[in-house]
């Protein structure tokens, strides 16, 4: 029974780990727009005030509103407060 349970939990974790994306959280008062380069395409992703947006399924490059660039693997959470960017 215990092994069954362990297997079930492992399967659960695998499944939940299977589909993941980076999360953009806008903590500022104004909407922010970031430029995401993913799969050979440049797209703009906009998050309104206090909004959370999912993007970047499997690795991407991002340009933030303050001009900074970063690369993401697709499991990060990006918090933007005005000009400050925090990637975790």
């Amino acid at each position: 029974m215990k092994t069954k349970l362990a297997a079930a939990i492992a399967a659960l974790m695998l499944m939940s780990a299977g589909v993941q994306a980076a999360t953009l959280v806008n903590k500022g008062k104004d909407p922010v727009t970031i430029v995401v380069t993913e799969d050979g395409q440049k797209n703009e992703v906009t998050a309104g005030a206090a909004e959370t947006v999912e993007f970047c399924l499997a690795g991407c490059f991002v340009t933030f509103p303050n001009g900074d660039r970063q690369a993401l693997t697709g499991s990060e959470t990006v918090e933007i407060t005005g000009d400050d960017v925090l990637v975790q």
Partner: protein
Amino acid sequence: MPALIALLLAGILLPDFSYSQAPLAQPVEVSSGEAEAIAEIDSQLAALDALNKKVLDSLQNDDALLGARISAEIISRALIEASVRFRPILKDITTRAETFKSATAEGDTPAPEVAAGVAALNKRKSAINGALAKAEDGSLAASALVEKVGVARRDLFSSQLAQRVELSDVFNAQTASDVGAEGRDLSRRVTSWLTFMLRFKLNGVLAATTFALIAALAFLRLGTVFARPFGRHNVVGYQPSYLTRIVSALVATLLPALTLAVFLSTVYYLLDWYALLRPDIAEMLSSLMRFIWQVFFVYRLALAILQPSQEPWRLLSVSDNIARLLLVLATLLAVVTGADTLLNAFSNTLSSPFSLTVGRSFGFAILIGLLLLATALLKPFKTEAGVAKPWPPYAKGFIVLAGLAPIFAALFGYVGLARFVTQQIVVTGAIAATMIVGFLCAQALADEDALKSSSIGRQLHDRFGLTDRQLDITAMMASLLTYAAVLFVGVPLILLQWGFKWADLVLTAVYFLTELKIGSVTISITAIGIGILVFFVGYYLSGRFENWLDKTVLSRARMDKGARTSIRTAVGYLGIALAALVGISVAGVQLSSLALVAGALSVGIGFGLQNIVSNFVSGLILLAERPFKEGDWIEAGAVNGIVKKVSVRATEIETFQKQSVILPNSSLINAAVGNWTHRNTLARLDVPVVVSYGADVVKVQNILRSIALAHPKVLKTPEPFVLFKGFGAERLEFELRFFIADLFEQAVIGTDVRFEIVKQFRLQGVDLPYQQHDAMHSIFADDPDIGSAAITLEQNSNESAKVIRKSTKS
């Protein structure tokens, strides 16, 4: 690392000494990680450039294009990985910049060293930003390259299919001499290698072969021991079940095939290890080994399925002759397709002229077409009477078409198309045949009793003690899993074979599983699956918790049984509710929208579900208040019996006739419920007695009292009491009242007492009144001994009368 420690130290020191100059004095140097990441990005970009050139050079080579595509994807990934390495460095830079900023008061001109530090940091940051921009462009270029390769491969494919060769260019004297030259080249290479081997490296070859033989034999021996229970035992008249046949077919195919694989690969790797293989020989030898293995595998598989000489073990219901023919055809097909691949590998190594490649493809296309046509002419099936039956018309038509297509394509010069068609037919056919065997296996597993009656089932039963039911469920699950596995492996394989891209398949599958849109609702099948799984896990855990609580905590707390049951039930329901809530929220259903539904439902509950809700609430009250518990003897309306189970909607009561009565809880709350065993099992038993007017009442009182007192199970306190109830029409009415300790013995004790009363009355000459009914009168009238004696007991008067009749007759 030192930078990190410094950073940590700065973090600790800063809050107290934010104006201290110490952290600022740190050098703003470029860390080694930074330089490495930049170098990595540059090298990947260089590799991408080289790849771009390579693609331009090899637009006609599909294998090279495919390799380039994979390389481009790897480069794209590597660029992202290298770029991610900047993240801690960027964080470090930001932190330091903050430090500098806080070192200068608002409006002040920064100190010169601060300004220099800020400038250095900005420089580093812009360098990193530049590298990131380059990497980003690189990843865009890599994606563009992948696109380009895709287009090139499509073009190449269609041009190859549409390419037409003049057969007269291929089949002429030149080609014949080419074939001769090619054969001589091949034999020269092989002989030179063999001579070299035999002359100088014979020991190495012998050692390699011997060792490989030993390894293969050891593997075979182990495999035989392991697979013995699933093997064949040829007893005359034995009819193995379908499942047994399939499993033994698998064993009979896989075991020798794997043994051969062990032997061949060991020989190859040992020869390679001793450096005995020249590159060209290595390539040809590995192709030859693959060819031998493929042919052997197909032969064994066909043999296992068809069993030309052992009818009981045959998986397809065909006659012996057809089985033999099909075996030959399947083996020939394997030989022809394998030889095509083998010769292709040879001509790649020997760099054969184009005409030879075309000629070979032509020959194989014709051969495979003919083989397919021969298959179409077979009569593979049997009617009920055992007469051979041909393919169904549509299948026959399909096979004929599949056979004619490559032949005609080749004859008209479209050799590329013919080759493509034959490859597709053979590979798709092989996958489809394997899938069919898989489906048959799943179907056989699903049959009831299939596993039970097979040797595997017996093994499971003997080793793990599985019951028939468990075996049946195991078989069902295994069958479902087999179906799923066959579908999940087979369908993508066929789709890939037909030119679908793996990435597209994965994306489509992910789309279906995670965000299937129906109207404006997005459904995630994965999330729903996980939600269901979470619910079951939660349900299981709550059951475990309930058991643990009951066995470990409640039983030690010396709670009474009723309270324990109540707590157990409440915890159980709570657990289910929690598991359901968690499951629902994991499945992605917003609990707030659920509240909306609940709000709408509450109106419905007000009308339609009123009864159920009232029962539910009553059940909760019953669990809390506990007017009765499991095992109590209760009377509720007309129902009189023992409580078996109190659940939230209804209570199960078992009457003494062993009828289960499900009583809705609300009726137990709204009406009076009598509980005989609420506090104790003490009960008063009333035995009504009548005597004739001629009897001595004091004597009657004494007899009754002494009878009650004499019975061992009648309580002495409170004392038995004889009630002189009244003067009836023709008899005096008494009632003997006494207490007993166990209510459940009332029938036995009551009967004992009544027997004793009749006995004592008769012995001591107390007259019982005449029976009033004619029927009863006639019974007793025959017997002068009883005379006027008769007894009426209010309860069970008929039974009592029968008992008396029996006793008087005996």
